[in-house]
């Protein structure tokens, strides 16, 4: 596909890195800053055009006529929208704009339709959504949703005394009598799609797929906490904090925000009447103790300083057993950070890039095929794909046993008009169903790709 990326900030560069890895895309990047442009062109196989993305001439030079997707991720919301508008006018391509100003939050839906935007992405909001989802299900490390939110893939770690230790995958549903499927296991650096005879061990990260009800049931059986946290402490009162607090308050969770800047505190106060706003330095441990860091059920570090967030979270970890979430914006030392023993780390730029990538891939695939949703799971080593089954699909109307599937493929779930079926060998896939496939192969575009 021909893709134009306008703006080479953090997200823009992340997108270039991920998209240029896939051969079939031809990427052109547009940015005003020549030195950054040159850097990117030197390190990735992309073409650079220097100039403003909102200029007709520049867009033409970047080949807008043959472009399938234009992604505008400059620092300015208005420029992004303008760029998308012009691009849309010129070629009718799909456009994605990043709009992060909370003041445009309500207007987004308006202009999304009128301007013909295929997708509007707000990094702070998506990060907040992700954090909120985790706080509602604090045992999970990662949660992805399918079938319009009916099915979830949850990732969590097997703790020391868990009943799942040293148990065969095939025995799980019997022993625990619940209707879920283990669709992936990460052990060290390896990732598996486990067969029936796979034995789980302590410290494995497992991903389970099931309806929300079944998953909750399962997690309860395993002995993990399932209920959402009662309260949360947020350090740093930026945009993400506002979005997060709004979401959490709506879900009935008590929110306490610690913010250094007095003026900002007053703004927060009027924006979030139900939250407790503390004006103080979040890095002062006396203040944190005073505000109850030992007793809070969850702690979210959202300051603008990555280092501060990491330190705060490490400190909170020593004081508290609850869920701790760390936001990291810039630092790229994944290896180091993952060894620090932090619970859950949120990278807003990665989340944003991932959302856009998902859209790009689904668009790429939907040319002549039928993918609904798509998520990277098992640390990016596997994909979970949701397919629509058409009338003449080769796997329709047959029992799953009789299908000859490639290795490394699991049919994880069937959604029949809203009824979720965990597939067993005798089940039949019917036209009109959607099925969720978990696979270690990459680049499936059609349901027939899973067959030998």
């Amino acid at each position: 596909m021909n893709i134009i990326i306008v703006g080479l900030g953090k997200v823009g560069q992340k997108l270039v890195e991920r998209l240029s890895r896939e051969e079939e895309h031809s990427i052109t990047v547009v940015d005003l800053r020549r030195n950054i442009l040159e850097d990117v062109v030197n390190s990735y196989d992309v073409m650079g055009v220097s100039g403003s993305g909102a200029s007709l001439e520049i867009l033409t030079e970047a080949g807008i006529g043959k472009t399938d997707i234009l992604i505008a991720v400059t620092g300015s919301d208005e420029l992004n929208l303008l760029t998308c508008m012009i691009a849309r006018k010129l070629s009718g391509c799909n456009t994605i704009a990043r709009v992060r100003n909370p003041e445009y939050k309500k207007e987004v839906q308006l202009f999304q339709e009128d301007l013909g935007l295929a997708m509007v992405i707000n990094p702070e909001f998506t990060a907040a959504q992700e954090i909120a989802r985790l706080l509602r299900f604090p045992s999970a490390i990662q949660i992805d949703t399918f079938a319009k939110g009916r099915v979830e893939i949850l990732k969590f770690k097997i703790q020391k005394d868990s009943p799942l230790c040293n148990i065969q995958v095939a025995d799980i549903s019997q022993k625990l009598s619940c209707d879920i499927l283990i669709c992936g296991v990460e052990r060290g650096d390896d990732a598996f799609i486990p067969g029936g005879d796979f034995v789980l061990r302590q410290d494995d990260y497992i991903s389970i797929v099931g309806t929300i009800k079944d998953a909750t049931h399962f997690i309860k059986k395993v002995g993990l906490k399932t209920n959402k946290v009662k309260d949360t402490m947020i350090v740093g009162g930026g945009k993400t904090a506002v979005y997060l607090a709004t979401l959490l308050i709506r879900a009935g969770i008590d929110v306490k925000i610690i913010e250094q800047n007095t003026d900002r505190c007053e703004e927060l106060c009027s924006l979030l009447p139900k939250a407790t706003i503390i004006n103080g330095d979040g890095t002062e441990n006396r203040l944190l103790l005073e505000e109850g860091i030992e007793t809070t059920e969850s702690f979210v570090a959202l300051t603008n300083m990555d280092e501060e967030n990491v330190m705060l979270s490490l400190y909170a970890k020593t004081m508290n057993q609850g869920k701790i979430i760390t936001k990291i914006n810039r630092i790229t030392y994944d290896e180091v950070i993952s060894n620090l023993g932090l619970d859950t780390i949120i990278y807003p730029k990665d989340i944003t890039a991932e959302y856009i990538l998902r859209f790009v891939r689904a668009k790429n695939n939907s040319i002549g095929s039928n993918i609904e949703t798509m998520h990277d799971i098992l640390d990016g080593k596997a994909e979970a794909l949701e397919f629509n089954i058409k009338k003449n699909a080769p796997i329709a109307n047959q029992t799953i046993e009789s299908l000859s599937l490639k290795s490394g493929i699991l049919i994880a779930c069937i959604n029949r008009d809203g009824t979720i079926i965990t597939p067993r060998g005798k089940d039949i896939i019917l036209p009109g169903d959607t099925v969720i496939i978990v696979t270690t192969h990459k680049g499936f575009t059609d349901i027939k790709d899973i067959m030998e």
Partner: protein
Amino acid sequence: MNYRMISHVLGWVISLEGICMLLPFLCALIYGEQNIWLFLICMAICFLAGIPLTLIRPRQKNMFAKEGFVIVALSWILMSIFGAIPFFLSRYIPNFVDALFETASGFTTTGASILTDVEALPKSLLFWRSFTHWIGGMGVIVFLVALLPLSGGDNLHLIRAESPGHSVGKLVPHVKTTAKILYAIYFGLTLLQIGLLKLGGLDWFSSLTLSFGTAGTGGFGVLNSSIASYSPYVQWVITIFMIIFGVDFTFYYCILMRRFKNALKMEEVRTYIGVILACVFLVCLNVSSQIPNIWENIRYSAFQVASIITTTGFSTTDFDLWPQFSKMILLGLMFLGACAGSTGGGIKVSRLLVLVKSIIKEVRVLVHPKSTIKVKLNGRPLEHETLRGISVFFMAYCFVFAASLLLISLDNLDFTTNFTAVAATIGNIGPGLSLVGPTRNFACFSSLSKVVLTLAMIIGRLEIFPILILFSGKIWKR
């Protein structure tokens, strides 16, 4: 330095050269030459040296600008050495330094020769001699990048180090596709010329070798008289194709993509055409006393101007006998060279255009000391970095020129010979004036001078810095 990566790519370069020798071998078969084994042996030598190197698997795939420069510089030196083997083994050029000079002259598309009697060589060797022009014209590395499964963005460093011109852009987002497009255009234009020459009544051998010489803007002929004894039609075809191959290939891509506006906007191409027309006109006027027939006059002048500005170096007449003014124009064109992004050599039209514009800007700043003026090319203001790069390149060109001139003056030949010999080699033209004029050759120089001129050719072809970087001690540290 990623030594494994460098060895790996160099291995491919040498093996590829071995594969290229298949063509002269076929040529020897077709013409039933006595020494049929010659090219097979040379191929074997290339494969023996190349294949083991390709088997060295790079541990890391990252390649930075410095590796790109080193790979390109070393591959051109190695190519010249391995390419010289057929001349040396066949005993037609018994001195290896001579053989090296001849091959480097071929790959760098210079066309300067040390042979006094070209026609004495067997057809297969002549074919190889001309074919090196074609290989060197677009560059081996560009070809390899189109084929080798190297990781993405890093390849640009390779192409950038090899391609002539100050700003090497991509035509399309993928380096590989860009390399393929360039070669496709190159190949297509060459085929067209071969066809046209064949229509002019030449045999396959002459059409092929002459087209190779023109396409690479090289200049090796297959007759002692260069192009003089061919029909006017053939001479015109060659004139036009020399000019065509001296144009930036981006121009043809724009035309193929039907972006005529972009193509016509290219300031460098317009200047290039303008300079050619002006020079043809001036030379015509100047030589009209020697060649009274107006059409003949235009044909000779146009051919010679095109041949020198595109740095090809074919000749239809002994322009050493022309009046001084015409000779000086040709000498000036030796420095000017063709467009950036073409197969030609020299300083390049765009660079000189920018330099001239910088001078104009400087004068205007003197008149209005507080004015803000930007040097523009194609309607776009140039970055300070680009301007600096061009000025430094020009300086370096002069220094290398002066150093080479100093070294070859040890032979105690006359000034015109020395000066034009260096100009003709560093600019990849071929013939100069006086003793190295179009009817003479470079055999008069000592071995030392030949080595110096060989290096000058490679330095000129790779635009100086890839070779200079080899002399930086820091680059060889692990």
